[in-house]
């Protein structure tokens, strides 16, 4: 762990001043940053401890929706009565991730900003473009079991590890950001990026910007939803593939559909054309298959992760069935509904 300067601002304006330095890192729950500090992957010259900022509330938005404070913990968010009633998909996605202890510490802002679990990114003894631009990507041609099948680049094949973010993507949340240039709102689909030629940039956040809240839109998906996560053990493991589905059914037909995938790309993976296929249709396995194919169009394995293609397809089918039937996956009973 390198040595750093420490600041503990009391309000957002002060935090932005403290965080203006390009080498500054915001510290909230610490579950990812402290881990990366110890690995010498994160090397900030200044750690800006934002835990005292007044951003931990969860409040209804005038006109509909729910504002999740960036510093509200994952636990608080997952068990919030409004979240459980109106956005159970988000609650389920959060509870599918990590552990009780980690969720107690991890914050909403920190969760969506967590970095990849790529073995090479984490191991400073190996080259990695995301960690050290220009070093090359050792994952390509290496141990690729957990890597991306969609949206990867020649510079990086890492995946985004968050479960919560997959749920937020399906719900079309918005990320509220404060920065030196004022506040702005980023649609969730634009928040994370694909690696392209700049794999070190996980998000479209600009240097010094700070997530202040995540807004859930007025449309709720209280019944026809699921978060289905497949992993190497039944708890406390990152997703090999996960699927968030939110449906609105009207008179037996799908009026609105959202599908987001985790564990397969550098960001939660959505395709408008896949969701468009579902709208106006009656739920049916063939239809779900077509949507899965559209969602996975262009998917390509790296060898050891080739299994993610059939796994993702089957998982999408099952998740759509679960959501359509209103029998969401339990995060406690590990039997897949």
């Amino acid at each position, binding site marked *: *762990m390198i*040595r*750093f*300067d*420490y*600041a*503990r*601002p*009391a309000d957002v304006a*002060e935090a932005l*001043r*403290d965080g203006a330095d390009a080498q500054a890192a915001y*510290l909230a*729950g*610490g*579950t990812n940053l*402290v*881990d990366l*500090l*110890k*690995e010498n992957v994160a090397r900030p010259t*200044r*750690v800006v*401890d934002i*835990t*005292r900022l007044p951003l931990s509330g969860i409040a209804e938005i005038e006109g509909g929706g729910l504002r999740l404070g960036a510093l509200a913990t994952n*636990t608080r968010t997952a*068990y919030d009565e409004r979240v459980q009633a109106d956005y159970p998909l988000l609650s389920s996605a959060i509870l599918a991730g*990590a*552990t*009780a*202890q*980690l969720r*107690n*510490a991890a914050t909403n802002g920190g969760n969506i900003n967590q970095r990849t679990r790529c073995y090479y990114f984490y191991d400073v003894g190996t080259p990695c473009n995301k960690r050290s631009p220009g070093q090359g990507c050792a994952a390509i041609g290496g141990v690729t079991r957990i890597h991306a099948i969609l949206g990867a680049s020649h510079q990086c094949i890492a995946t985004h590890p968050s479960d919560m973010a997959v749920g937020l993507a399906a719900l079309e949340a918005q990320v509220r950001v404060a920065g030196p240039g004022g506040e702005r709102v980023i649609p969730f689909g634009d928040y994370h990026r694909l690696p392209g030629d700049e794999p070190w940039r996980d998000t479209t956040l600009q240097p010094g910007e700070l997530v202040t809240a995540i807004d859930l839109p007025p449309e709720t998906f209280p019944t026809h939803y699921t978060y289905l996560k497949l992993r190497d053990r*039944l*708890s*406390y493991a990152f997703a090999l593939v996960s699927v968030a589905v939110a449906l609105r059914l009207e008179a037996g037909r799908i009026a609105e559909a959202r599908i987001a995938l985790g564990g397969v790309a550098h960001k939660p993976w959505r395709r408008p054309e896949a969701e468009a296929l579902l709208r106006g249709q009656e739920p049916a396995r063939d239809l779900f298959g077509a949507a899965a194919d559209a969602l996975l169009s262009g998917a390509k394995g790296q060898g050891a992760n080739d299994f993610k293609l059939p796994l993702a397809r089957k998982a999408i089918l099952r998740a759509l069935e679960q959501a359509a039937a209103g029998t969401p996956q339990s*995060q*406690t*009973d*590990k039997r897949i509904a």
Partner: protein
Amino acid sequence: MSQAALSLKDDPGPALASRPIGTLPVRLTINGEDHALDLEPWVTLLDLLRERLHLTGTKKGCDHGQCGSCTVLVDGTRLNACLKLAVSLDGSEVTTIEGLGQPGNLHPLQAAFIEHDAFQCGYCTPGQICSAVGLIAEGHAHTRDEVREQMSGNLCRCGAYTNIADAILDVMGQEGRE
């Protein structure tokens, strides 16, 4: 003093000059005892407990939030001590295994862990017990399945899981059968 003055890049001022270079004042209540500490910002709660305060009941099993051996209660909530910078917890109350119960005055979970032989080597045990205290306080687990899932943040390489679940369910007063 503005909180920003804690920043090391700022002029430390006369009040800070007497402290070792690079340290910050941190007040923590640990197992009911107040501690006024001067700490570098990169000291984790876990290393503070183990190396400086010699509260070695809290274990280091991975140092990266991947095993749960360092689980302690901070303001009543179970957390991985290895992922907390101690400075960040300034003003908090920390309870470790030493604060839960002592020989002759065991916490019910400590007694239940012995009765159900819920450990072998004992290394993950303080973290398991602190985690179970947190779990019961959270109130989200009622069945054996729920206990299993909510305790999955505590690895046990000796494989005492079934006995751990028995011990916790015993204290919760539930049968918790499948």
